[in-house]
């Protein structure tokens, strides 16, 4: 049985549908990515999951039980990192972490150890006595995370934790998430940065306009679409018949030749660059630069919705 | 003149907020003026009439005579016979004095030795004042009872004595109470409005980014400071004209009749300078809007309370008067009192007047000097 089961979830805000019959299954031990553009319903799913929002239809089960506002036993095992930094400006770094950890762990001695671990884990050592308004953006995000995960929850929900964070802090955060996962936490990760999701998530659901468009591992997702390898050849001079020959090569479904640059798209799996180079060698065609790209989640999103993820 | 214009634009942009605050301060000031200016100067002698409550438990000829007798001197109202009602009425100053006319008023109290119970603020002037009147009644009644045939005749005679009044002459020196009461509150208006409004604007200019941008420009620090002071001065003068006009309108008749009217307005100008300098100080020091708000309130309330603006100087105790002398409001209040209560200014009064104005101006310079020094120190520290 899945750790989290979401069935037919519908949430309306007056006239707009935020979630449209959403179904999700999240297994224990995975890093599950919720990918979608801004306003696609990622945060709404999270809020429904935490029973903070009313929804119109559907059911949510966590750890096999129906999630209710007073399901304190379930909540005890969840850690949440909100999209907005939610910490007290008047408390120091360690006091903040201690406070939020204290919502889950009443035992003081045990908490002290957990807080120290969380500080080391998020790399906030040296800043314990500082107030949040003295921290840089990246450190503040890390504090936000530390507050959510200090009690070592079984399920960690991170809602866009890397918004407006410098690359160094981002890498640190992503590494940390993988480490938590290795230590046994299941992770739900929402983002509109496909690179991050691709980098760390074991399974991904693509959301748009409150619907789940596709779900699976990244390979599965990429297999769902027609586009496979993409090959770019720059500084290439082709005659008309040569271009026609290339167009009719196996698996090629699109060839665009403009300003001495050729872009080829191949169907399905497999690499086709070598075959192409062989042909060019035979025909004595030279080129300046050539490279091959495997499909990205952006391609998946593009092909499913017809628009770019970053729109 | 970019900096100069910037201030005026900032003022214009926040006009609605400022109008709102100005009207609040104005309402408070007008309320205070109305509260304190109950007395008027009729020009001839008038005996002070107090509100007196009477409880008549006796309901006899003599109790009624006492009530009628008191009515000749005071505003008398009949009260419920409840101690707590009486106490509350006295406490809330609805009445200042209550007398309970007991049963058997004639036997036990007029002819006997028992005193009549009264209720008022113990040790107060009203206690002595009305007690004297009631004593006089009781004694006169005894004299009349001894000197006439019947009680009715005695009572009539007692009442007739109420018509007798000594010859009292009021040698009036000039007293412009209305002018005094209205213009005494001016510092509150200046300090609250200027500290709040100018403090907010000046704080904006203290914003690090704006300051760095200005520092990076070709303007010299000196020219920046001069321009900002000039902008302050412009707005201050505007505020001065506005507030003094409001003051004049409030008591137009007395103001135009006063021989010292232009000195009063000049005195207003000096305190405006003091308030303006204080606002420059507040704006240079405060870092957040909340801090401006807090400082403006503390400055305006503190200066006005301790400087004899809210409570006349004569009522301040010695220690407070000494502390008050450090505030420009004290000298303002002293000047206003000189100007309102003297028609001719003697040499010593004139000297006092000029001294007061000079001190107000000196205060302004001191404030600006400190603010500029703080500003300079801050620039270097960043």
């Amino acid at each position, binding site marked *: 049985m899945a750790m989290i089961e979401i069935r037919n979830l519908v949430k309306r805000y007056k006239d707009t549908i935020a979630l449209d019959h959403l179904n999700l299954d999240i297994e224990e031990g995975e890093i599950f990515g919720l990918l979608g553009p801004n306003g696609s319903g990622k945060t709404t799913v999270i809020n429904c999951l935490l029973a903070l929002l009313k929804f119109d239809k559907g059911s949510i089960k966590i750890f096999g039980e129906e999630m209710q506002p007073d399901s304190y036993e379930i909540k005890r095992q969840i850690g949440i990192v909100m999209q907005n930094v939610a910490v007290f400006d008047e408390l120091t770094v360690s006091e903040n972490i201690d406070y939020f950890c204290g919502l889950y762990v009443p035992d003081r001695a045990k908490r002290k150890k957990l807080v120290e671990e969380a500080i080391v884990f998020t790399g906030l050592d040296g800043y314990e006595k500082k107030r949040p308004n003295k921290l840089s953006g990246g450190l503040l995000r890390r504090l936000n995370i530390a507050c959510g995960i200090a009690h070592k929850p079984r399920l960690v929900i991170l809602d866009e934790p890397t918004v407006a964070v410098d690359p160094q802090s981002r890498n640190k955060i992503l590494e940390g998430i993988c480490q938590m996962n290795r230590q046994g936490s299941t992770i739900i990760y929402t983002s509109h940065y496909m690179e991050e999701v691709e980098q760390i998530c074991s399974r991904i659901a693509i959301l748009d306009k409150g619907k789940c468009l596709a779900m699976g591992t990244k390979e599965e997702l990429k297999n769902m679409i027609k586009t496979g390898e993409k090959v770019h050849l720059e500084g290439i001079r082709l005659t008309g018949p040569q271009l026609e020959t290339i167009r009719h090569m196996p698996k090629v479904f699109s060839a665009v030749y403009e300003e001495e640059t050729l872009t080829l798209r191949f169907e399905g799996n497999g690499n086709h660059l070598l075959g192409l180079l062989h042909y060019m060698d035979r025909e004595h065609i030279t080129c300046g630069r050539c490279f091959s790209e495997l499909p990205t989640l952006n391609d998946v999103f593009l092909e499913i919705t017809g628009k770019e993820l970053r729109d | 003149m970019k900096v100069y214009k910037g201030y005026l634009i900032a003022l214009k942009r926040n006009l609605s907020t400022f109008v709102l605050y100005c009207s609040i301060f104005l309402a408070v000031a007008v309320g205070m003026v109305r509260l304190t200016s109950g007395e008027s100067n009729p020009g001839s002698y008038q005996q002070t009439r107090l509100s007196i409550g009477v409880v008549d438990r006796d309901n006899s000829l003599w109790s009624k005579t006492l009530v009628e007798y008191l009515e000749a001197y005071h505003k008398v109202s009949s009260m419920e016979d409840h101690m707590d009602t009486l*106490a509350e009425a006295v406490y809330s100053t609805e009445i200042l004095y209550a007398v309970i006319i007991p049963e058997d008023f004639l036997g036990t109290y007029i002819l006997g030795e028992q005193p009549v119970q*009264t209720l008022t603020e113990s040790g107060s002037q009203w206690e002595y004042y009305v007690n004297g009147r009631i004593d006089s009644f009781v*004694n006169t009644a005894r004299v009349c009872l*001894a*000197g006439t045939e019947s009680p009715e005749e005695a009572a009539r005679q007692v009442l007739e004595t109420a018509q007798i009044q000594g*010859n*009292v002459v009021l*040698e009036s*020196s000039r007293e412009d109470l209305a002018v005094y009461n209205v213009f005494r509150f001016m510092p509150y208006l200046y300090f609250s409005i200027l500290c709040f409004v100018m403090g907010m604007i000046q704080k904006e200019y203290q914003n690090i980014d704006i300051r760095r941008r200005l520092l990076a420009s070709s303007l010299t620090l000196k020219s920046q400071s001069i321009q900002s002071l000039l902008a302050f001065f412009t707005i201050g003068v505007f505020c001065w004209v506005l507030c003094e006009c409001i003051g004049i309108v409030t008591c137009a008749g007395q103001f135009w009749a006063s021989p010292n009217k232009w000195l009063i307005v000049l005195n207003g100008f000096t305190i405006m300078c003091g308030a303006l300098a204080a606002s420059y100080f507040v704006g240079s020091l405060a870092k957040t809007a909340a801090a401006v708000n807090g400082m403006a309130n503390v400055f305006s*309330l503190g200066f006005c309370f301790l400087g004899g603006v809210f409570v006349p100087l004569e009522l301040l105790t010695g220690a407070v008067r000494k502390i008050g002398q450090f505030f420009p409001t004290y000298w303002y209040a002293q000047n206003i009192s000189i100007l309102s209560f003297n028609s001719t200014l003697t040499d010593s009064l004139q000297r006092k007047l000029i001294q007061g104005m000079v001190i107000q101006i000196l205060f302004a310079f001191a404030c600006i000097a400190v603010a500029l020094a703080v500003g300079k120190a801050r620039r270097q520290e960043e």
Partner: protein
Amino acid sequence: MFLIMKRQILVNIREKANIFWTMFFPLILATLFHFTLGGLLGQNEMGEISAAFVLEDTASSAVEGDAFFEYLDHLDQEWLKLTPMSDEEARAALKEDEILGIFYGGRERRLVIGENSIHTSMLSQLLDIYEKNETLLNRIAQEHPEKLPGAAAELAGYRASTETVSFGGRSMDNVQNYFFALIAMTCLYGSFMGMYNTVGVQANTSALGARLAAGCVKRYESITASLLSAWIISFAEVAVLLFYMDVVLGDIDLAGQIGRILVICAAATLYSSALGMVIGTVGSLSEKLKNGLVVAVSMTCSFAADLMISGVKGAIEKYVPLINRINPGALTTDAFYSVLVYEDAERYFRSLGLLAALGLLLLGIAVLSMRRMRYESI
């Protein structure tokens, strides 16, 4: 729950603006009140009145022997300080405000004063009584000469015949009410704390609230914690103010009444905290707007309790007494009055009961609207 409370209190105390307005501002006002209204406190107290006596148009310049002077001199009124002077001296003294009036004896008795005030009225009252007695005796001598000795004897036995009722030596000075109103205002400021703390635990009003709601803290615990922390802090602030006003400044005298006064303050701060909580739960207004609302409500209540101008509460009592029964400011000053000015147990318990009951009512409303945990939108 204690952890939430502890943190909430810490957060409230470290929030500078909050502490400035709810604690230091009342302390500053109390100090200012002390120095200025302190002068007013004794304003109505009877002091000494100086007057001059000038003898005119008589052969001898010795005032002794003049009947009017003898009368004034033997009045035995401790407040009158009478000095015989020459006319020029007296006029100069009057101009310099050294004396308040000049009694002229001799052929034409009169009183010359420089201003209309209760003090000069008292001087004129003395003249009146003298004239009155003289007229009276003349009249009796004419109408009933046989009774003149008796009447004259009565007149000689002039005595005070009044006695002021005192309430255990407590002052009836109305200026005290400003101090009571200040305490009431400080109690009312508890609503700020109630509002902040409520906004902080609701998912739909702040991100922190959402985090708290997502945690496994029971709802009733977080509500109770936010109320208790607000209540404790505002009560502590009022206690500090009371201590300052009683011990340091000495403007109010709590001797022997501390228990009852603290009970009032506890009830008043409960009321205010609950009021703040209700405002905190109202709709989805921004915190800034709610702050404005709290300022407006607390200042209106203070105004109606005579903080700025005295007489407002009395006028309300006359026309819409109901307002005084629900305004926490008026209820607090009422309760203070019934303890410190005029002992009135009924009124004390009525005010206390109303404060507590209305506080609990508001608390109920706040809890009902906070009990919800799932929101339509966040």
